[in-house]
């Protein structure tokens, strides 16, 4: 009797465990079925800028950081501003910055959407944010952010859904990643992004950045994106070996006037 009871208990335990294992995760984004009920982030996204001079509206990127720079860095940045205002922009190499145009992209809070288009892809338990310039962020849903994440180009990202808003938290960012001009993001930077649809084809990313090495407090910025469903992937690149504007050996700016090999002859 006792033996039969024990067997029954064991069978029941195994069965209920199996049932629990089969029970789908009810949290949003953890199954293909639940993904169908999430906001539609599909398609390609690019920054929503006024095409007739809207480049200046990117100033939001600059104004988000500049007032918060630590004094020694503010001095450095103001020096750059003065040069720019005087029309004396210099080659980045002469400012001590060697652009690493062919190295993998380093994420410091900007997902792209300017020279490239951005995708947000949903699979169970994960959101992947990628761009045509090589951004590749893996956002793991409902996992804790590791306290000691190793530094990497994209950092370590976790996320969760708050209603129709995807909240992404990132740490483990490469301290040498450029934040702005020649200022690096530094150690222990932390980013929180709140990503949501504002209307059918408009996405907003509201971002808070904490960068204790360089900023005196959290920096907040919101960027808007427009959807292009018809866009077909086109690889974007900053590689200097494809760029007539940058010498791949020295990283200095140049203007390579070597005619293309297949240039047709001049008109007769």
């Amino acid at each position, binding site marked *: 009797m006792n033996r039969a009871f024990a067997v029954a208990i064991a069978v029941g335990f195994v069965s209920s465990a199996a049932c629990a294992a089969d029970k789908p995760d009810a949290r949003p984004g953890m199954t293909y079925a639940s993904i169908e009920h999430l906001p539609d982030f599909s398609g390609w996204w690019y920054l929503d800028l006024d095409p007739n001079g809207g480049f200046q509206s990117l100033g939001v*990127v600059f104004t988000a950081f500049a007032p918060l720079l630590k004094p020694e860095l503010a001095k450095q940045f103001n020096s750059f501003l003065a040069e720019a205002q005087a029309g004396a922009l210099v080659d980045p190499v002469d400012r001590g910055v060697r652009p690493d145009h062919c190295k993998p992209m380093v994420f410091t809070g900007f997902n792209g959407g300017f020279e490239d288009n951005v995708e947000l892809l949903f699979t169970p338990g994960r959101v992947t944010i990628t761009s045509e310039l090589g951004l590749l962020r893996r956002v793991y849903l409902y996992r804790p952010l590791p306290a000691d994440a190793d530094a990497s180009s994209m950092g370590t990202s976790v996320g969760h859904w708050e209603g129709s808003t995807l909240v992404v938290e990132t740490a483990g960012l490469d301290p040498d990643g450029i934040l702005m001009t020649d200022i690096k993001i530094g150690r222990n930077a932390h980013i929180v992004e709140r990503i949501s649809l504002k209307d059918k084809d408009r996405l907003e990313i509201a971002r808070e950045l904490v960068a204790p090495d360089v900023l005196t407090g959290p920096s907040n910025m919101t960027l808007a994106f427009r959807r292009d469903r018809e866009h077909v992937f086109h690889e974007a690149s900053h590689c200097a070996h494809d760029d007539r504007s940058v010498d791949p050996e020295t990283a200095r700016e140049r203007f390579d006037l070597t005619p293309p090999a297949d240039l047709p002859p001049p008109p007769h």
Partner: protein
Amino acid sequence: MSLDSTAASFDRAPRLAPSVRPSAIARRALWLAFVCLWASPALAHHSYSMFDMTKSVFVEGTVAKVEWVNPHTFVWLYVEKADTPGKYDLYAFENGPINMLTRTGWTKDSLRVGEKVTVQYFPLKDGKTGGSFVKAIHSDGTELVGDKFAPGVADAAKAAAPKAGASQ
């Protein structure tokens, strides 16, 4: 660079129309654009310091080639020397990246090889035959503006082309 049908040399005799200088407001916008351009390495990848962004100029020529590549497309133009008919200078114009252009309607066939156009551009500071592309004007008068998000382009493109035959 000067070219004829059989040979190439490296002298220069540009035939340029009068330059266009931006207004004070446009200059401030241009300065802001430079600042923004540097705000993040992901926004743009060079400083445009090689170009004279304080003025734009026009030149007439024949499209030799469009290099439809990233990170910059390039437009090559044969420009006939004013004082030596049958001989040409070869001009090169840096234009925006493919994605930026296609968003505003460009295709790789927007400028056809052999087509006669007038190109507006910010000239190279070193005086060589080339610069940063602002817009092309087709023979029927329609205009094709380059990378509208690049510094100075949207404002400079508002300038009308000078009349044919104008000299610098």
